[in-house]
Every structure is written in C-alpha cells, then in structure tokens.
C-alpha cells in the first residue's frame, strides 16, 4: 500500500514538470513573430525555377544582350532604382517577350515580370525595387524564339526593406 502511494506521487510530480515545461515553451514563443524566409541566398537554379517556361534549359541560358544597371550600394532597401536594357530590334521576326527581375534573398523571388512586344519599340525598363539585404539581382529576358538571356548585379544594402517599422 505504502509503495503504491509513493509511485503515484512520483508520477504526478513528473506530469506537473512536463506540463510546466510545455507551458514555458508556449509562453516563450512571441505572439508577433512573422514567418519570413529572407535569411538564405538562393542559387541560380533555385532562382530560375520561378521563371515560367524555363524548365531548367541552362544550355540555352546565356549571359549576353541584357544590361542590368543598378547602384552598387543602396543605403535603403525600400526603394532601389534599376534599369534593364535588352539589345533587340523589337521587330516582328525578333523581339523580347518577357523581362524578369529575380531576387536572391527577398521572400518573393520574382520581383516583377514585364510583358513586352513589337509595340514597345525598345526593350528597356526602369523601376524601383525593394531589397531584403545584400544580394545578387538577376534580369532575365526571353525572346519570341524562346531564347533566354540574362545579366546579374551585386548590390550591397545597408538597411533591409524587411525591417519592422515599429
């Protein structure tokens, strides 16, 4: 009888400890945590997975014809100007259909996709992007013949765009 009482008290103490530990773990999770995957840098293969219709055709992927111009050092990642120019006649026979802007570190890989055509007259776009830290930026162009060209730029960002305003 005595033995059984001791066992019970040990069990209940263990249960209490486990319960307390679980409670502690729960309480230590901050309620305002935001899930964000901007910590790691993507590889080229991972970046190109986000491009529709590319399907890993790296043998047709050349660093040519595209000129990506952007600042080397951005003080603020909230607004970083960049310009992409693709060498193309923009004629009915040969023109650029898409320009992608890909980010290596941002939570959203494809920052923008531009749809161009013969009516554009010139394959050049200029915009302002948000950057979550220092990273490589890729500008990828697709021709109407299904060829892919790209250019890359390395940018140092002193203050990431994904920091809290509060």
């Amino acid at each position, binding site marked *: 009888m005595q033995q059984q009482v001791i066992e019970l008290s040990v069990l209940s103490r263990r249960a209490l400890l486990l319960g307390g530990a679980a409670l502690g773990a729960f309480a230590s999770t901050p309620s*305002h945590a*935001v899930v*964000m995957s901007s910590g790691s840098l993507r590889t080229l293969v991972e970046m190109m997975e986000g491009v529709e219709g590319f399907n890993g055709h790296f043998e047709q992927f050349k660093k040519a014809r595209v000129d990506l111009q952007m600042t080397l050092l951005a003080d603020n990642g*909230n*607004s*970083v100007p960049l*310009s992409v120019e693709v060498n193309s006649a*923009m004629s009915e026979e040969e023109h650029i259909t898409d320009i992608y*802007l890909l*980010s290596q570190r*941002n*939570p*959203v890989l*494809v*920052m*923008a*996709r*531009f*749809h*161009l*055509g*013969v*009516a*554009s*007259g*010139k394959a*050049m*776009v*200029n*915009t*302002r*992007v*948000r*950057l979550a830290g220092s990273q490589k930026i890729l500008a990828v162009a697709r021709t109407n013949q299904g060829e892919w060209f790209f250019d890359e730029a390395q940018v140092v960002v002193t203050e990431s*765009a*994904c920091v*809290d*305003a*509060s």
Partner: protein
Amino acid sequence: MAMNARLTWSTGARAGDVVKVRLLVQHPMETGYLQDLSGHTIKRNVIQWIRVQYDQREVFKVDTSSGIAANPFFEFYLRASVTGLVQVSWIDDAGVVGEYSRLLALQA
C-alpha cells in the same frame, strides 16, 4: 480609397517614333511583413498587375509583387503610331481597381 497615377512623356513625338513613357502609381504596396506601432501585422496589399493600352491594344504589362517599392514607378517605351489614348489599369490584393488615361497627341 481613390488611387492616383501619373503618366508623362515628352511632347512632339511623330508617328513611328519610340516614345519613353514614365508611369507612377500611388499605392502603399504593403508587403505583409511589417507591423504597425501597436504590433499588429499590416495585411499584405500590393498591386498584382499594371496594364497599359495604347489605341485599344496592350503595349506594356507588368506583374508586380511586394518586391516593387511603394508608389510603383515604371519607365518603358512604346512605338507611336496614331494620336490615341494611353490607358493604364491595375488591381491590388484588396480588389481595388485603378484606372488612368491620357491622350498621346502626335505631331503632324
């Protein structure tokens, strides 16, 4: 909420010229990662796409994301053919549709 846009180009273009167009749309482009001062996450609200039509034909479209800065700015080109309306339309995550148009007048 009323949304504004601005569409600019240099005057004096003739038919056949390639015109540089500057487009600025007023929009906060909330990423959904930031919090307000009371610690509540601000709901994501970004423009999903912006379409530009010239003389009833699409000449430029951009699929935007939270990777585009607030008050999106774009510079692009279009081949001028006739005096016609340049119409810009866009939609954001909240379902708010924006529209803006301006006449591109060509010189004879």
